[in-house]
């Protein structure tokens, strides 16, 4: 079977774009990805796209051209981008298509999301009594994790500091101002133990990738990035997930653990082979827990890793080199693809001021979202 390569990268800067719809931001990202690959929309045989609040992704054909291609909308929560990429990977790997586009975009209202219980198989009481907030779940998960594995508040602060420092050298990031330890420590509390600077916010943005058969990649770029694996997994009985009125007695591994293991197996590499990673950091606790859930360290080892700077841009395993969700915000439809966009630039050596030194060869991306879904991609050059 053919390998799958990523040959075009496009992004519309994340943050707030009051004069553009979400769809328009998706179109800008798509055109940028096509231009990066030196091709055009007419050459695309398929597209997979997704958006939560920005409208139907396939409406993009009105802006990019009514070429008659197969355009499939993908909606899978925070793993929308990962699921689109997984679909594109399968479409090319199977031999059905040679080249296509993956695109995600979004435009969320300010403030926290306000999901409706009925959409998640729950009754109204759950939301009416104030339990339907993702912020509470993230806070409770890291609270228990800190208790079980000795993670300190200082470590939470270090993750936020790193995110905004990396965001300050990322031209397409939303938050481009580094923050001091004191600024982060003294921010207003949102949900114990997480304060304002420890959560990412819903935002806007667009991201797109052009994928093709690896044996044709040289037609489009000097530096194709191979998509070695693209895996999406859902939750198991007993994994501690958001929007759960009750949890089983025994705690089972999160879907991240199973997605990660499968991705490593398909790619034929292990955690020790990864040179640069993107781990879902909807809040600082998520990044900490995901370091272990993805197999990069033992539970509790994050405390020492953060102290020693292991996950800094010049560390042994740089994590979220573009500032991640914390500095970029989370336009849900685009966020997972932004991770892949960043890793591709790191592997191409085109990440500018945030470039990981010594030519990283293998990269990793991970998303996690409600109500317990994970997507992992492994990329290599």
């Amino acid at each position, binding site marked *: 079977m053919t390998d799958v390569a990523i040959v075009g990268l496009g992004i519309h800067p994340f943050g707030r774009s009051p004069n553009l719809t979400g769809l328009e931001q998706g179109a800008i990202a798509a055109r940028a990805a096509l231009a990066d690959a030196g091709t055009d929309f007419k050459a695309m045989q398929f597209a997979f796209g997704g958006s939560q609040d920005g409208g139907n992704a396939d409406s993009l054909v009105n802006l990019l051209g009514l070429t008659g291609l197969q355009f499939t909308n993908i909606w899978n929560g925070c793993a929308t981008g990962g699921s689109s990429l997984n679909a594109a990977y399968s479409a090319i790997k199977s031999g059905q298509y040679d080249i296509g586009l993956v695109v995600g975009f979004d435009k969320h209202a300010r403030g926290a999301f306000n999901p409706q219980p009925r959409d998640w198989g729950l009754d109204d009481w759950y939301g009416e009594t*104030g339990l339907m907030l993702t912020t509470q779940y993230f806070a409770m998960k890291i609270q228990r994790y800190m208790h079980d594995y000795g993670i300190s508040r200082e470590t939470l602060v270090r993750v936020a500091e790193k995110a905004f420092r990396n965001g300050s050298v990322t031209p397409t990031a939303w938050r481009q101002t580094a923050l001091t330890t004191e600024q982060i420590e003294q921010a207003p509390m949102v949900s114990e133990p997480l304060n304002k600077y420890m959560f990412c916010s819903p935002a806007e943005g667009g991201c797109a990738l052009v994928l093709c058969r690896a044996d044709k990649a040289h037609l489009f770029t000097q530096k194709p990035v191979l998509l070695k694996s693209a895996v999406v997994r859902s939750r198991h009985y007993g994994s501690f997930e958001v929007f759960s009125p009750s949890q089983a007695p025994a705690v089972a591994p999160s879907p991240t653990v199973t997605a990660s293991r499968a991705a490593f197996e398909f790619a034929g590499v292990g955690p020790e082979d990864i040179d640069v990673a993107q781990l879902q950091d909807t809040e600082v606790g998520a990044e900490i827990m995901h370091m272990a859930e993805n197999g990069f360290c033992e539970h509790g080892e994050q405390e020492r890793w953060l102290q020693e700077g292991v996950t800094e841009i010049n560390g042994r395993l740089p994590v979220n080199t573009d500032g991640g969700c914390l500095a970029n915000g989370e336009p849900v439809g685009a966020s997972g693809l932004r991770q892949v966009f960043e890793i591709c630039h790191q592997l191409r050596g085109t990440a500018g001021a945030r470039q990981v030194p010594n030519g990283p060869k293998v990269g990793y991306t991970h998303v996690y979202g409600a109500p317990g879904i994970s997507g992992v991609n492994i990329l290599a050059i």
Partner: protein
Amino acid sequence: MANQDPLHPGLFSWPSPEPELLGSRCVLCGEHAFPSQDSCRSCGSEQTEVVGLGRTGRLWTWTVQTFMPKSPYHTDETAESFRPYGVGYVELDCGLKVESRLRENTPETLAIGLDMTLEIIPVRSDEKGTQLMTFQFCAAESP
């Protein structure tokens, strides 16, 4: 005194001097769920029965909701009268961990492992003036 009704049926036994949470237990594999459901989320069977889940447990994890949530949050509170509330998972004697509002609402009064007891509290009044009730847990030694 105003009439009182549960906000949602089947969540707890009430009125009762010692109300307890109600859930389901799978007849085949024995796993519990809250709220009760007709099929088992562990083994997928459709043979479940409603059971009492008790009224005590230990705090497994917690946080504090510091700001008034947007809709679908629906109480009688206003932005001015809103008071932060605790949220946690309480590990019941059957092992099931149930998510709940907590009466305690400060880091000083909440800790993993704390013994907790169920109480029934008003959420809001409906158009007829009936108080709609839900459950929360409070520390066992609370006054």
